[in-house]
Structures are given as C-alpha cells and as structure tokens.
C-alpha cells in the first residue's frame, strides 16, 4: 500500500512528465521562459511584460501542475490560478482595455496637438500591419504553415508595435496564437533600438537627418481636455469597432488632463495598471504551451513580426520625406517618422538618438512624441478595421476558424 502511494506520487513528478511523450516540449518551453526572464532582467527588454510573460510560460509548462489548465483528477473546479486569470481578463478582453486606460492616463498628447500633421506619420507606419497580414497569407502556401485570415490579422497587428492592442485583437480573432504574437510584439518593441536605426539611416541623407524643426508651441490645458473628447467623437462617428480601445485610452487621458479626478488617474496609472499587468503577463505567458507554440507557425510569426516592424519604420520615414516635398515651409526631420510605429516611448527615443548622431544639438525627442502617440491611435484604428471586417469576410464554420477546421 505504501508502495502504491509512493508510485502514485512518483508518477506525477515533473521528472516523469518531462520524460513522457511530448514532455520534451514542455521542458523546451520552460527554457524559453528562462530566456525571456534573462532578456528582461539582464538586458532590460520590456521587463514589466517579459518577466511576467516568462514566468507565466514556465508555470504553464510544468507537467501535472495544471496551473493554466484544468486538473482532470479534480472533483470540483480544479482550474489553475492562471487559467482563472486568463478567463477573467484575456478571454473577455478586459485586461488590455484596462491597460489602455492606464496608458491614456500616462500619455501627454501635447506634442501631437502642437503639431497635428504628425498624425499622418502615425498613419503611415501602419502599412507594416497590412503588409505582414498579406505576408502571413502568402506564407501559408508553404506546407506546415497555416494561417487563416483571423490569424493573419492578429499577426499583422504585431506591426502596430502596441502590446495591449495586439493582445486585444488576438484574443478576439485568434486566441490560440496569443502566446507567440504577444511575445513577438513585446520582443520587437524591446528590440526597436536595434531594428530601426539601420533602416532610418538607409532611407535618409545626412542632410535630412540634420533638419532642425521649429520649436513646438505651448498647448493650453483646455486643448488637452478637448482633444481626447474630439478623438473619441471622430472614432464614434467613423469606426465604432475601435471605440473600446480608443475610448479606454481617451478615458484615461481625460482623467489625467481634466485635473479634477487626480486620484482616479493616479490609480489607473499605478495600482490598477500594475495589478492588471501582473495578471495579463502571467495569462499571456501561459499561452506558450508546448503543443501550441512549437511549430512552424511560430517561426513564421516571428519572421513576419520583424518584417512588419521594419516596413512600418520605413513607411513612416518615407512619408515624412514626402511631407517635406509637399510643404517646404514647415520642415520635418524624417527621423521622427519612424516613431509612428508606436512602441512608446522607445521609438521616439530612437529618433532622438539617431538625430543626435548627426547633430548633438538637435533635440528631436518632443517632436518624435507626436508621431509616437499618433502611432498608438493609428494601430487602434487599424485594429478596429480588422475587428469589423475580418469576421465578416471569413465566417467561422461551427464556431471554428478555417485553419483549425481543415487541419483538425
């Protein structure tokens, strides 16, 4: 009897689990989790998200622990705690929305209001989204890579360079890809200082990089209060499917700027945002389960994400150059175009840094913040289009997406 009980305990050790069929995959994913922790802690790559995602990945891949699943031997419930968090906030889409409130409460739209035409740079950089989308559909011609339109839309949104938007769209369109898409999105956001500069240098002349921009005019408190309201109004009229994201962002921003609910905007930025970040990171990481992560699709996603970032960067720079051709009175340093991909505030800092390589006295940071926050809006708009059109174009059959249907 004691032998039986010991055998039972032994049969549920992780050692047995890792050596069982498919167990090597879990072990490999745990190592991937460790790598994410290493990148976050030692290299400082987006630590708030990669520490939590990495840890979630590790916990979700421990055999027989069912932390992100349901314990089959349990008699009542038996849902692991990360599964509870996932169902509470990712399945429902609540967590990315709450993060967006906090982002709104931390964002200063002043530079954008002072120079509204930089909004167009934030629009241009979204080309990366749709290019990656088409790229995903083309990759699907390769055997072993299978993306339907839902998946392709989710992959494209990596090019939005905006974590909560990517998670929100993916949780709506292709939740099974959430792990790889979120990791790609946050990894590339962390890699922006490496990815962007060569592209920016290749597409600009030394002369262009030296362009000094006019100082930004001061923006009044009233303008900052009206701005979120006017953005929300335009969004409500044009694209309701983007209003959950844009509305949350503008709610946070209005709470910050209006000056009468500081205790709420403070909580959105701190306690609430931190709690949601912990829950969201663990939940997203838990989608890096071996079975769903270790396949050719993931490689495709990583490659396409990189392409999306690079293309968005390039388009942003090129449109800035075009703006200089069309309007010679208000010169724009094309280096700030790359900040239109979002990746706030990293991309704006990169613009500034590359600009100072050319002329250390040229301070582009504030100018780049305009396209940078415009990029967040642009991504949210692109997300709205995807959410409105993709389910209409490609209807689910029996509630299952084509790629999963045909291959099931």
């Amino acid at each position, binding site marked *: 009897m004691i032998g039986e009980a010991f055998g039972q305990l032994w049969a549920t050790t992780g050692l047995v689990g890792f050596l069982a069929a498919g167990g090597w995959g879990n072990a490999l994913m745990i190592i991937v989790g460790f790598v994410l922790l290493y990148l976050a802690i030692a290299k400082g790559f987006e630590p708030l998200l990669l520490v939590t995602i990495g840890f979630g990945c590790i916990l979700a891949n421990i055999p027989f622990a069912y932390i992100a699943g349901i314990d089959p031997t349990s008699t009542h419930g038996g849902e692991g705690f990360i599964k509870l968090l996932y169902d509470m906030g990712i399945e429902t889409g609540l967590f990315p929305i709450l993060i967006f409130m906090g982002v709104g409460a931390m964002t*200063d739209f*002043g*530079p*954008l*209001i*002072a120079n*509204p*035409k930089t*909004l*167009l740079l*934030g*629009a241009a950089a*979204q080309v990366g989204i*749709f*290019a990656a*989308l*088409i790229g995903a*559909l*083309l990759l*699907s011609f390769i*055997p*072993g890579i*299978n993306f*339907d*339109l839902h998946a*392709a*839309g989710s992959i494209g949104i990596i090019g939005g360079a905006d974590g909560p938007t990517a998670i929100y769209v993916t949780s709506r369109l292709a939740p099974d890809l959430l792990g790889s898409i979120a990791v790609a999105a946050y990894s590339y956001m962390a890699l922006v200082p490496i990815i962007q500069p060569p592209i920016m240098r290749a597409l600009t002349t030394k002369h262009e990089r030296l362009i000094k921009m006019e100082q*930004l005019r*001061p*923006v*009044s*408190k*009233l*303008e900052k209060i*009206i*701005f979120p309201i*006017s*953005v929300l*109004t*335009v969004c409500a009229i*044009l*694209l309701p499917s983007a209003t959950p994201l844009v509305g949350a962002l503008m709610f946070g921003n209005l709470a910050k700027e209006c000056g009468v609910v500081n205790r709420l905007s403070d909580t959105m*930025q701190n306690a609430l945002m931190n709690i949601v970040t912990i829950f969201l990171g663990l939940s997203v990481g838990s989608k890096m389960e071996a079975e769903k992560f270790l396949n*050719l699709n993931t490689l495709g996603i990583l490659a396409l994400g990189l392409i999306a970032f690079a293309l968005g960067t390039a388009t942003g720079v090129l449109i800035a150059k075009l703006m200089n051709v069309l309007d010679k009175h208000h010169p724009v340093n094309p280096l700030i175009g790359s900040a239109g991909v979002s990746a706030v*505030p990293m991309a704006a800092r990169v613009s500034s840094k590359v600009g100072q390589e050319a002329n250390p006295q040229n301070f582009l940071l*504030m100018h780049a913040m305009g396209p940078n926050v*415009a990029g967040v*809006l642009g991504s949210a*708009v*692109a997300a*709205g*289009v*995807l959410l409105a*059109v*993709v389910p209409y*174009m*490609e209807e689910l059959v029996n509630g299952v997406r*084509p790629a999963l249907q*045909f*291959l099931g």
Partner: protein
Amino acid sequence: MLNQLPRELLMEQVNNGLILLVIGMGTVFLFLTLLVFTTKFMSGIITRYFPEKISVAPARKAPAPSSGKAQGNEIAAAIAAAVARSRR
C-alpha cells in the same frame, strides 16, 4: 506530415488580404487626416476665443510612477536651498 490548407482557400485569403490592405490603410489615413483637421480647428477656436493661462507644452514628459521618490527629491532640493540660505 505537414498539413496544408486547400489552394482555393489560400487564393481567396490573399485576395481578402489585399482588400483589407486597401480598406485598412484607407480608413487609417481618413481617420487620422480628419483628426488633423479637427485638432487644428479645435486649437484655432480655443486659442482665439478661450486664450487661457497657457502652460508650456512638454511639461510632463514621462509618467513618474514612483511619485514618492520624486517628492523626496523635491524635498531634498528644498532642504539644500533652505540650508544654503541659512548658512549665509
């Protein structure tokens, strides 16, 4: 071993993707262009008819999550100033 979606589906998907590119970028540009005009319009109205006490635009750059820290620093600065004054 490597599964594959049917070819017609793949072709139709690419076609849909191209449509999405056109519609998507169109909407993005339309939306943000409209926003350029509404923002300019709003700023125009406000600076003309409600010319409030103007604050310098890029005042609050990054959010200061550890406000306690920042506050501490301000106090430290205040101490330094006070002590400096008291020395004279």
